[in-house]
């Protein structure tokens, strides 16, 4: 049963991912990306990582996608405004992405997945276990993230703050 769910989710994720890249309409792209995120969240649930699944949906499908859609609406991007890229750029992008895919598949195929641990800790993906790890072992990085958030917040304020004497150079 789990195997079939896995297959279904994997197919859904790949399909949505392909459609995200190939759709002409940016709004369709975003909707497909949301579908892709839900499929990946389903994978997390299969791996018993409940916290990760919930956070993934809240952060990506919720916050970031809303931001994307909002930006699309603000900038009024539609099919007509999408410029054509030069053929050389497209070919080189396809070739380099294809090479990366090839190398990753080859590397993963050759890799022996290391022996599964004898005792699988089923609580490892739960909020309690994660909280314990974050606030014991990973306390310093956890606190350092706050500096990351703070500096991006300061930056957003700095960029958005209105200057006292705006110069008219930039239209």
């Amino acid at each position, binding site marked *: 049963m789990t195997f079939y769910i896995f297959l279904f989710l994997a197919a859904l994720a790949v399909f949505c991912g392909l459609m995200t890249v190939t759709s002409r309409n940016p709004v369709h792209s975003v909707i497909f990306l949301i579908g892709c995120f839900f499929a990946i969240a389903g994978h997390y649930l299969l791996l018993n990582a409940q916290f990760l699944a919930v956070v993934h949906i809240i952060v990506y499908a919720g916050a970031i996608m809303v931001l994307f859609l909002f930006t699309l609406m603000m900038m009024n991007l539609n099919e007509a405004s999408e410029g054509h890229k030069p053929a050389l750029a497209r070919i080189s992008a396809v070739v380099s992405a294809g090479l990366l895919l090839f190398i990753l598949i080859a590397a993963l195929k050759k890799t022996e997945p290391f022996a599964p641990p004898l005792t699988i800790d089923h609580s490892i993906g739960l909020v309690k276990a994660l909280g314990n790890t974050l606030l014991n072992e990973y306390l*310093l990085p956890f606190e350092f993230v706050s500096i990351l958030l703070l500096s991006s917040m300061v*930056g957003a304020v700095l960029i958005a703050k209105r200057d006292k004497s705006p110069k008219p150079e*930039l239209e």
Partner: protein
Amino acid sequence: MNALIYTSALGIICLLAEIFNLRKLIIPIAIAGLLAILGTVALDWNADNSIREAALYNMLRADSFSLTFSGLLISLTVLLLMLSTDFYKTEQAKISDYIALILFILAGSLAMASFGNLAMLFLGIEVLSISLYIMAGANKHDKRSNEAGMKYFLMGSFASGLLLFGIALVYGETGSFDIVEIRDFIATHQPTSMLYVGVGLMLMALLFKTGAAPFHYWAPDVYEGAPMFHTAILMTVAKIGAFAAFYRLFSACFIPVMMPFGWVLSIVVALTITVGNLSALVQDSFKRMLALSGVSNAGYLMIAIVTLYGKTDNAVFYYSLAYGMALITAFTIAILVYRSSETESFSGFNGLAKRHPFIAASLTIAMLSLAGIPPFAGFFGKYYIFSEAVRNGRMWLVIIATINSIIGVYYYLKVVFAMYLKESDSNAAPLQIPVIYSVVIAITLTVILAVGLFPSTVLGWL
């Protein structure tokens, strides 16, 4: 090893200082705080830090490499903050934000110089990069600055994604984020192709962050577009921090898997030095010339990574010290010249020697040191790195690097010729030199000369 925590706290204090109307005191507080933090780094030098490392689960390590680089990064930031007093004179309303961002940049680079865990490496790079994106785009009304910020942001986030992908693959192979555990795993197991792909992706991200060819395309535009003082931060603290992380990661973890990457890295190094040098040769703008020479300097430093098997860390430190000090001298004078002549091209320096002999002589010494002319510090930096490479059998790399440093002399001396041999415009205004700028120039020159004349004292530190 608590320098990271103290620096972050100091940044937050600077942000809070604005609430209490202490705007005038922010820079003195920051400088005094950093000097105190420098003292704690010096105290850590002789102390046994293993207990405190264990208390932090080895997230940070206080070995001699991380402590010396922390000291260097903090000292460079102190010098930059001294310059900032005058640079931000017209932007008092934003000063607390800028100073806090500079301190966060320092915090990020400290994490990169002393990480013991890949989580700290990634966070350090992100804190550094996010603050730098803002600094590059700080001049809102200048289109070039907007372009610099946007370009750096888009490409930098892509590189961060590659780094994260690489870390994930390395974790999948070794089962740990800790650099010591990763090293032990790699030393005892046959490396698989997944590990190689992971290391390769991390290598690409770090090459991007240090601005090495073929990932250097962002560097000239970003360095040129950013405001002059922010370019100085980008090229000193950020670059040395990124390089420290690069060197630390590969020397601590990945020496056993370096074999397939040795040739790739050698070619990357040769390419970086040559491309940076040849592009710098044809530039007309002093700032862009320095930016491209920064690319080739990253290449010289990377020779030390190619020859990791030897003990190159003290040579790397020496080179970084010489490079940072010479660049700060150059940027201090470039800020002064830019302010009076409003031009970034070499013509702004015309006839400077007649008007300000002291300034012209200082810039000449800085340029000679960057070009690698004895007896200044830059020469010994190159000498030690090259001699390690020769000892490790990379003769052809050293030959390419030497040819390039001879080419480099030409463009470094271009500005010297402009100062000494060309006549200035008759209406050129004399430079307004704030006292603090003279102090900074005096300090950096003393270091360049002292380190150049007595190189063994610094080399003995590590």
